[in-house]
């Protein structure tokens, strides 16, 4: 008789239980279940939580997951460099990624060099989407893994294959990517408008 059954029978019969439940043993047998060990479904589940992929069905996410490449990066490793040709779009599966722009900024007072840090991305964030759309896309920023991270990459060849084999999924994916790009463009346009307004007010102030 299994340990689990033995305990549950004791509970049914209101018999006294052993002082200490062998949780570790239970856990071991529970986890050694062959179905539990595999994390087959974890990537589709991860994709489900990404906002821009919400128009995908479960099955479509499962297929999309087959075309993604899980890449592991160590702490401080560069994912890509600014100005490099890029063909990949990345989702952050775990860990953090720093996006850095431009030359290193030197702090005059301390002499410490610091790169022009823009943003730190975390789990469920994504970056590099322009690489999928542009013909010869050069990276606008440098991406550096902070403390090591796992990324799910989708590359131009994968998109080509998706278009060939699963046109519907490819259309949905490109829709999502254009959604990301459109959102960025929208916020950029607003920012430009604000800056223009600021400049014009500054010019007015200077002339008056």
């Amino acid at each position: 008789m299994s340990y689990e059954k033995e305990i549950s029978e004791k509970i049914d019969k209101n018999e006294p239980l052993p002082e200490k439940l062998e949780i570790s043993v239970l856990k071991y047998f529970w986890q050694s279940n062959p179905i539990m060990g595999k994390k087959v479904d974890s990537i589709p589940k991860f994709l489900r939580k990404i906002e821009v992929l919400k128009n995908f069905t479960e099955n479509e996410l499962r297929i999309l997951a087959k075309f993604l490449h899980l890449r592991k990066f160590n702490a401080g490793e560069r994912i890509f460099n600014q100005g490099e040709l890029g063909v990949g779009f990345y989702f952050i599966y775990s860990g953090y990624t720093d996006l850095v722009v431009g030359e290193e900024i030197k702090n005059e007072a301390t002499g410490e060099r610091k790169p022009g840090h823009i943003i730190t991305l975390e789990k469920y964030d994504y970056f590099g989407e322009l690489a999928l759309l542009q013909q010869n896309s050069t990276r606008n920023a440098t991406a550096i893994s902070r403390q090591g991270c796992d990324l799910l990459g989708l590359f131009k060849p994968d998109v080509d294959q998706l278009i060939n084999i699963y046109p519907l999924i490819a259309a949905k994916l490109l829709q999502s990517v254009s959604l990301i790009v459109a959102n960025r463009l929208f916020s950029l346009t607003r920012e430009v408008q604000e800056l223009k307004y600021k400049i014009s007010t500054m010019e007015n102030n200077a002339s008056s």
Partner: protein
Amino acid sequence: MPAVNQTGKREKIKLVFFFLILIIFTLLLLLMPRVSTPLIFGYVIYLIINPAVPALEKLGVNRLGSILIVFSSLIFFSTYPFIKIVPTISSEVENIQYYVPKIEGFVTKKYKELKYEVKDKTSYEIDDKYFYEAVDWVKNTSGSVLLNVPNFLASFLEWIFLIPLIVFFLLKDGRSFKRSFLRLIPNSVFERFYHLSYQFNRKLGDYIFAKFVEASIVGLIITSGLLIMEVRFALLFGIIAAVTNIIPYVGPVLGFVPASLFAFAEYGYGTTSGAIITLYLIANAIDMALVFPILVSKIVDLHPLTVVVSVILGSQWLGIVGMIVSIPVAAAFRLILDEVYKEIYQDN
């Protein structure tokens, strides 16, 4: 920062390991022709029929189902030609040996006529040495090629079992092979390597497919034309024309030479020989005017000079095989050079 140094070091080890695997794999392929030849043939067939699988998948058949459909139709449609063609070719090859002395006699006679004519008109006597050396060379090489055909067919029988197996597993597990290979590529070169290898594979696949179609069209025209004219060895000459057609520029001439020699020796300078020559001209005209511009030239946009130089280099290193392989290899070099060029000059 020590962590970064550690990462850099590990990345270097990964890079070395990855390129070492590539080099070892290439060396193994070169050193073991008995394994690598069917593997390469299998890969070529895989590249030719692979586009059919996604097409079926698009219709809603699942992956294994579409692979099985493609694979069994390949077997179904190639069995009958094999059963029919292999014995015919064997007997044609055996028979053509008896024609070789006749052709040799014909060529020697023509040479002597030419020699006397030259001597009459210019009083210059051509040295016989060069001619007989050339005849010997042609006889020996063609003899060894022809004698090797049965051996080739024998190993062909071995391949009949091996190649379908390779093709099937490439179709079935090709994607997972590729994924596990991609996992080995170090992060720092991953994007570029993946992109480049994908482009190259697609170009190679398209090129092989186009060449296959081109060679089949030429072979079909010549074989059926010769069959209609009731010329002997129609199938053999058709196959020679198809195979040599793969070689750019030089190929059509190489395919034409044996048939024209045979025609002159067998039929003299009559209507039949004229008809055979016209047939070859028509087949090559169709190829040059219709098939090549539509199918091949768009895939491999190499300059004609590059093509000629790479064919010569290929023939120097690997003979006929080198001539056939030279174009895809040149295309690969060009792809890599393009990428390096972009890498170096795009930054500015």
